[in-house]
């Protein structure tokens, strides 16, 4: 599997990197860490490139290199890099410019085959979308954003599962909330959830929500299947069948101490664009990390 972790700064991205790397380790996935710098106005590209080339002559780093250096140090300090890669240190000379707005360096990892560090510039959704399309990532991991349209754009346009690391407290005692229904993505979501729960030893609640007191037969079957799968995987769990408003129930149960895992919406892209979706609402309103699993 391939994971893409987007980081923004040393100050705010530590929880994203920490949780992202732990989850990647659980999946034994290859990891690429990407920093996306701000878009450069088309009028200024040559001026900025000229200034950046000049900075190299003074042995000064361009924006973002310090964040990648910090990420490298985090990986090295926490044993994610091979001894050889760690010994070589973070060498800016190894960053290879692959196109005008992208450069990369690949390192040998300890738990995965490789760990990539990438520097990009431009609109963050466009850049993440390009990266995911180009290298077929399975999960994109990113911190929560204050920008309102970010959650929508991530779900709508990034062609991978999305893990938003929201309000993650590294020392907190987390549980897992699995949202289960009869949609085809649920099985994949449960399987992903199990991997995470095993890695973090999380108590898991599998919740099936119906708007009425009558539960569809397929939903009951999906809930029973999830229960069986969780038990077989050795996950301590409880199964809940709740009726009422989906968002209210999920956010009440999740609080701020759960990692929510759910399948992506099966609505058409047009319907999602105009009316939104349950995963989008969960991502916007819940106060804890959310993993949306796409098919």
């Amino acid at each position, binding site marked *: 599997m391939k994971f893409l972790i987007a980081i923004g700064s040393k100050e705010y991205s530590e929880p994203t990197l920490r949780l992202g790397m732990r989850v990647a380790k659980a999946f034994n996935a290859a990891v690429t860490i990407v920093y996306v710098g701000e878009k450069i106005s088309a009028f200024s590209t040559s001026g900025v490139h000229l200034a950046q080339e*000049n900075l190299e*002559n003074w042995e000064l780093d361009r924006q973002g290199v310090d964040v990648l250096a910090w990420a490298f140090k985090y990986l090295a300090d926490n044993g994610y890099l091979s001894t050889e890669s760690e010994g070589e240190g973070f060498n800016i000379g190894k960053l290879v410019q692959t196109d005008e707005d992208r450069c990369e360096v690949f390192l040998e990892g300890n738990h995965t085959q490789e760990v990539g560090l990438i520097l990009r510039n431009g609109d963050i959704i466009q850049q993440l979308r390009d990266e995911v399309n180009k290298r077929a990532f399975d999960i994109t991991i990113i911190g929560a954003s204050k920008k309102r349209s970010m959650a929508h754009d991530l779900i709508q346009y990034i062609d991978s599962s999305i893990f938003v690391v929201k309000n993650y407290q590294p020392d907190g005692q987390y549980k897992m909330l699995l949202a289960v229904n009869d949609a085809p993505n649920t099985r994949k979501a449960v399987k992903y959830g199990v991997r995470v729960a095993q890695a973090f030893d999380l108590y898991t609640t599998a919740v099936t929500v119906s708007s009425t007191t009558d539960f569809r037969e397929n939903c009951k079957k999906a809930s029973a299947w999830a229960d069986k799968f969780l038990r077989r995987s050795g996950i301590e769990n409880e199964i809940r069948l709740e009726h009422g408003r989906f968002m209210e129930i999920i956010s009440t149960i999740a609080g701020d101490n759960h990692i929510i895992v759910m399948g992506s919406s099966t609505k058409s892209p047009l319907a999602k664009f105009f009316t939104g979706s349950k995963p989008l609402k969960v991502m916007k309103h819940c106060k804890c990390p959310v993993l949306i699993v796409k098919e």
Partner: protein
Amino acid sequence: MLGFSHNFLSNFLFWVTRKRWLIFTFVISLLLFYIPSPTTLTPEGHRTLIIVVIALILIIGEVIPLPAVAILILILEVIFGIDTPNGVAESFMSDAVFFIMGSLMLAVAIVSQGLDKRLALGIIRMTGNKTWRIVFGFVAISAILSSFIGEHTVAAMMLPVALTLVRNTSEDKAVVHTLAKLLLFSIAYGCAMGSIGTPSGGGRNVIMIGYISEFGLGNISYLKWIKYAYPMLILEIPLAVIILWFTFRPEQTILDSAVRKLKIDVTKTGKMTGNQILAIAIFIAVFFGWVFLSPVLGLGIVALIGVFLYLSFGLIEWKDINRNTNWGVIILFGAAISLGIQMKETGAAEWVANLAITGLGSVVQNVDVLHWFISVFLTGVLTNLLSNAATVAVLGPIILDMGGNPIILGISASIASAFAYLTIVASPTCMIIHSSGLVKSNDYLKAGWKLFIMSMAVLFLVSNLYWPLLS
């Protein structure tokens, strides 16, 4: 849905959301096209203004590449029947475009000589280690240099000097964040103020000179421009230092160890090389060419002679020039100038000028002040959203058609296009300092609005009290 795959719909929606300004432009242009032409405006003028609206939205939104906007302007000029293909081609290329092309190439050649370390040493020797004196040195040197060689060249050379001083002061960003802002804005705003000093300070100065000459309103020589603009530049330097100092007052009032470390770093580079001396000599020759030969050869050809010399003496390789020259911007400025000329010839410029005067006539009663205010304020605002050269290329013909003294209004507008203090996208220098990651977008407004008002006031005084003495 509708037989389309989810993947197709998702890609389509992504395109729509990213290109919404393009769709908006298409809808607006269709609406404008089918609105009957005002009786006081020719059909060609009406269609020219539609192209102006399309170009402005596409440039500000940056939804398609700049060269694509340029190509669209040229295509529409022909399709809308505004001019013949040969006429459009003739208006596309001018000495101003040669100058912009030449000055962008000169910038690459000069930056690659490694003269920035000498520059750093020169500044530090002059200013010593007191922070306010260093800030004064940064603003003054950036302003004076950028009055001759183009602001983004100077910003590219000065940026490492400022960042080295910041790094030498402390590696902890929290400790030096105000100092970093102070030094970086000293460079960006110094460069912006300096770019008004001579015609070669910025492409838009040359565009305005070209319009004044092309429309038969007079001739402005290199030295005449300096007489008009340089005193304003000198007046602005201390005022800008005061504004910057009180906006970003740093904790570090003396940069003793940082300056010492910088001196040690810089002196390691040794004596000036033969190539560096030759590079300076060629630039001085280009400068004298601009002063004495430009009436005959044009500013653009003189700049290209400089590029030819740099290439011939092996001071720069073509691949470096090719890689670092923004060809898209050159094509766009050519198209914008072509559009400006069509605005004049179709009467669109005069129509907009009359509209602006009528509209603002109730606000400002004095006609001369009204003309001046429209020229300067409109240019000052638009330059913060658009490129300054594109602003002058589009607004120039309108301003020159407003009546009043075209020399005073033209130079005023060209100078106002340097008031690009308010946004990151206002000029390449603002973007260059932003690329350091040490300044945020709201920092531009903190000091920018004060500098904007100060510059407007100084320009008002200089254009009303000093310029009349020159004519």
